[in-house]
């Protein structure tokens, strides 16, 4: 740890930071946390739809990653490995929640405090009405996502947010390719049903 104390770790590669972390350098791990917390939090938030729980689960994912660092073999990218951990932590939480309740989460949904869609909306000189429509659509989409079952929400996040290929999704869940495609189809159909007014009028 003293060796890294005087070094700016912000530009250090994941590989080097992981190696330092594996040697017990918590400052190096802190840099990795800073580097990926936004992506991991986004994933947990999209899956959980609750800001507080998503924050806690993202933290849990990093803690589990720290514990599991000795087993990290560098044959996969650190983010891919971390992402799997975060996904499993979140999905375990969803499964427990489903067992305890009826699988509906919208009543517990808490919005991320940064306006929904604001981070992804195109920057620039949007007309006020366009910006408002964007924000409203973002809100509608988040509400529709929250009403999906955990399985459907999972494939939507993995495909639409993370851009994973079918084979990667199947390996991560894990399930067959056919199941991935069926879940994606029905998840999108359910979203379409909930947002039919948006797409009926716009097309």
């Amino acid at each position, binding site marked *: 740890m003293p060796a890294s104390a005087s070094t700016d770790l912000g530009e250090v590669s994941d590989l080097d930071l992981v190696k330092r972390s594996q040697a017990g350098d918590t400052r190096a791990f802190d840099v990795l946390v800073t580097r990926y917390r936004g992506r991991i939090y986004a994933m947990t938030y999209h899956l959980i739809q609750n800001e507080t729980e998503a924050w806690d689960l993202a933290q849990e994912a990093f803690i589990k990653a720290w514990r599991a660092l000795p087993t990290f073999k560098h044959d996969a990218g650190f983010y891919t490995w971390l992402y799997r951990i975060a996904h499993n932590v979140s999905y375990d939480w969803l499964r427990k929640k489903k067992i305890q309740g009826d699988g509906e989460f919208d009543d517990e949904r808490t919005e991320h405090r*940064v306006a929904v869609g604001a981070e992804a909306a195109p920057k620039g000189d949007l007309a006020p009405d366009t910006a408002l429509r964007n924000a409203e659509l973002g809100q509608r989409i988040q509400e529709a996502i929250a009403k999906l079952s955990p399985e459907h929400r999972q494939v939507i996040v993995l495909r639409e947010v993370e851009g994973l290929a079918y084979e990667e999704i199947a390996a991560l869940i894990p399930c067959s390719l056919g199941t991935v495609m069926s879940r994606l189809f029905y998840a999108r159909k359910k979203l379409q049903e909930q947002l039919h007014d948006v797409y009926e009028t716009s097309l």
Partner: protein
Amino acid sequence: MKHPSEEHDLIRWLDGEMNEAERTAFEERLKLDPVLAKEAEQMRALSASLRTHLPAEMKVPHADYFNTQIGVRIAQMALDDARAKQTGSSWSAALQWLRQPWFALTGAAALAVLGFFLLGPNASGASESMILSSYTPNTNVQARAYHDDAAEATVLMLDGLDAVPSEKKVSGIHVLRSEVEPELASTTMYDDQGAAVLMISRDALGNPMISPRG
């Protein structure tokens, strides 16, 4: 869209998972089937909206606190691991020593040392330990710690304590602590003949009490 293969075709076309021949064939079907074409277009619009409004990266609320909490939990885990691995070690003994009432009498009325020991996730030895901070309520007492490679132990040094009176010629200490009431404890010091020379305990109000003997 009743048949699963048709559902899969639409999804695979939408997600770009078809090869060139499959894509061409499916797009021919779209030209001939306006219902399918409309559904495909609506799904494509939905997909575009999802990608726009579900950001892959979000600002973490209280981001600094997020990192700090992870650091604290890692430190706590390391401390727990160290405690589990070093039960009965000199470090545990040192902690035990700090808690004894006679210690208060010898000069540091109240002294606590807080040490976070950061060990690696595969902490197999104490050589990777590190003191993050220490704290002594009694400002006359200075705490410092270092790792002794030869002893394979973390050594805690307390400077500023009053010495045990030399005329007592203490050569051994025995500490008794109540199992059910941690505040009930007594410390007896022995000379080299095994005779008790000083007993320290607390009265009903918790004040230190010395019983000179021998």
